[in-house]
């Protein structure tokens, strides 16, 4: 069966065993994009790998940059300590990414459930504004390539922060409310999603799922709180959890998480200081001392981790990505058992996978 989700074209299908309409077995079949991200990461110099991380989960390129930058900065130590302003810019970008990605995932969850196509279009509108901001600051809407070791590539252009404030303070909350009113009590959505694809807390932990999938199963685990990175410990926000771990909770957790992101953003755009955005001069020759590092970020889809082993040469000796989409997929069979074919599509949508991350 498949491809079903818009992003599963050619690279993912499900091998389903059915009894009538009921699922009795499911094996995800990963196809290939033939990109070989991890191997290329061992050929690339550390800097050259940035644009490749954009292409992992191509809806959250800022977040992908973030994790990779943290991993290599961990190796470089004090040489690459981001200045204050850069930290704020990073958090702003990462949270904007979260909103854009959750918007997309809610829109397309509804698409998978058969609501062609209005919710998706509504959700894309806010994403559009956010991508405009990315394009303005970084030069590209989706392949941002914006982070550098110790900071970000460019300072924010004039007027950027004002427009960002406008969007964050006056607009996003209202739009999330509207989406909430539009969808959350819709009887058809409730019917299709309540009690479907349940993952108990124990199962969610045992499958090592992450992000909204884990939190919907009532496990309050958010890396921004559990192991704060960058300057997340300064912001006031709560970790959202669901109760039942079903499809509806995964939808609703994402919606509430967007509100928390707006909360963080409001604090960040209020407090952002002036100053440099890189600790030293820009250089393409980056010296990374030998050692190994694992850094992780709470990406919109879950824990995104980078494991980098450096041997003192200009390229990584070993480079591995722990990508949330791939690992969340392992729980797919568990969630689908006993449901019908039509539910499988929704359950897959609720995982919010991006196949760039599944095949590396």
């Amino acid at each position: 069966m498949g491809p079903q989700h818009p992003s599963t074209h050619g690279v993912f299908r499900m091998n389903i065993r059915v009894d009538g309409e009921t699922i009795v077995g499911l094996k995800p079949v990963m196809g290939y994009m033939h990109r070989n991200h991890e191997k290329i990461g061992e050929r690339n110099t550390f800097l050259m790998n940035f644009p490749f991380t954009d292409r992992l989960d191509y809806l959250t390129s800022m977040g992908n940059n973030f994790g990779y930058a943290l991993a290599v900065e961990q190796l470089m130590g004090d040489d690459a300590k981001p200045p204050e302003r850069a930290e704020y810019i990073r958090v702003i970008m990462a949270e904007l990414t979260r909103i854009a990605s959750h918007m997309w995932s809610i829109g397309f969850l509804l698409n998978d459930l058969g609501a062609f196509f209005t919710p998706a279009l509504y959700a894309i509108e806010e994403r559009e504004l956010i991508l405009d901001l990315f394009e303005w600051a970084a030069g590209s809407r989706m392949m941002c390539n914006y982070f550098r070791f110790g900071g970000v590539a460019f300072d924010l252009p004039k007027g950027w922060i004002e427009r960002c404030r406008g969007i964050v303070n006056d607009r996003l909350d209202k739009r999330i409310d509207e989406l909430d009113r539009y969808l959350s009590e819709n009887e058809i959505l409730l019917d299709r999603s309540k009690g479907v694809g349940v993952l108990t807390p124990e199962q969610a932990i045992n499958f090592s799922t992450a992000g909204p999938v884990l939190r919907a199963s009532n496990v309050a685990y958010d890396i921004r709180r559990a192991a704060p990175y960058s300057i997340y410990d300064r912001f006031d926000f709560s970790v959202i959890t669901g109760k039942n771990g079903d499809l509806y909770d995964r939808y609703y957790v994402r919606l509430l998480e967007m509100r928390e992101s707006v909360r963080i953003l409001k604090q960040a755009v209020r407090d952002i200081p002036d100053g440099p955005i890189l600790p030293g001069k820009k250089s393409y020759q980056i010296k990374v001392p030998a050692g190994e590092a694992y850094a992780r970020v709470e990406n919109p889809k879950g824990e995104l981790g980078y494991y980098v082993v450096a041997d003192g040469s200009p390229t990584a000796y070993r480079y591995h990505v722990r990508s949330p989409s791939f690992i969340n997929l392992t729980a797919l069979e568990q969630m689908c058992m006993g449901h019908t074919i039509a539910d499988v599509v929704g359950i897959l949508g609720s995982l919010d996978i991006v196949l760039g991350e599944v095949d590396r």
Partner: protein
Amino acid sequence: MGMGQGVIRGHLITLRRFLLTFWRDARTGGAFKRRGGGHQVLDFFRKPGRGNEPTVLQDSKTDGLFTVEYPDERLPVYERFRVLPVLVYDTEDGNVRCTSCNICAKVCPPQCIWMTQAKSPKGTVVPLPEDFYIDMDVCMNCGLCSEYCPFDAIKMDQNFELSNYERHQTHIYSLQDLLVSSEYYSKTHPDAWQSSEETVERGKVAKKKDQRLQKALGATKPAPAAAKPAAQPAKV
């Protein structure tokens, strides 16, 4: 909540959006007009001239549905927006800024840049590119080459309308295809052009260029690549 109320509420929101869109268009005088067209009724069928399309900026106040009727309307092009790299030559004297130092090729992630350095007739190295190729099908538009070029020679262009009939020869850009004038660059990147960093950089590069020319003149004949590009620039 009673049966069906959630669905009805959803429909009311859709209806509100629908009406808002028309209200916005009526407010801005665009309700009965083809977007990007003229003011008369008959103008409905007229397209705006190429390059004169109105720009639509969507910001925090936009309501109704977001539709930009490209190509009759356009989104703003931001200065940093990057598509493909170009090489800059100075409009005044036609000199290519590139010194063929190879840094961009070293830093290019998919390794799609390659070049040969110019040689004087005596066989000594001249800091100019004899030829310079970029495989545009491989280029991932990351902008690293332009970010790390020490001579401000390679820059990212904003032209995104690149459709083409043939993709084997035409997508390997050579020096001639890549060259743009500094005038062109100053128009597409006004802020960067005026920024203090680039102005200082230009001063430095001018000095280096002088030395380079002295060196080239010191050789028996001027280096071939220095004169060639100026004769027929690809884009102005």
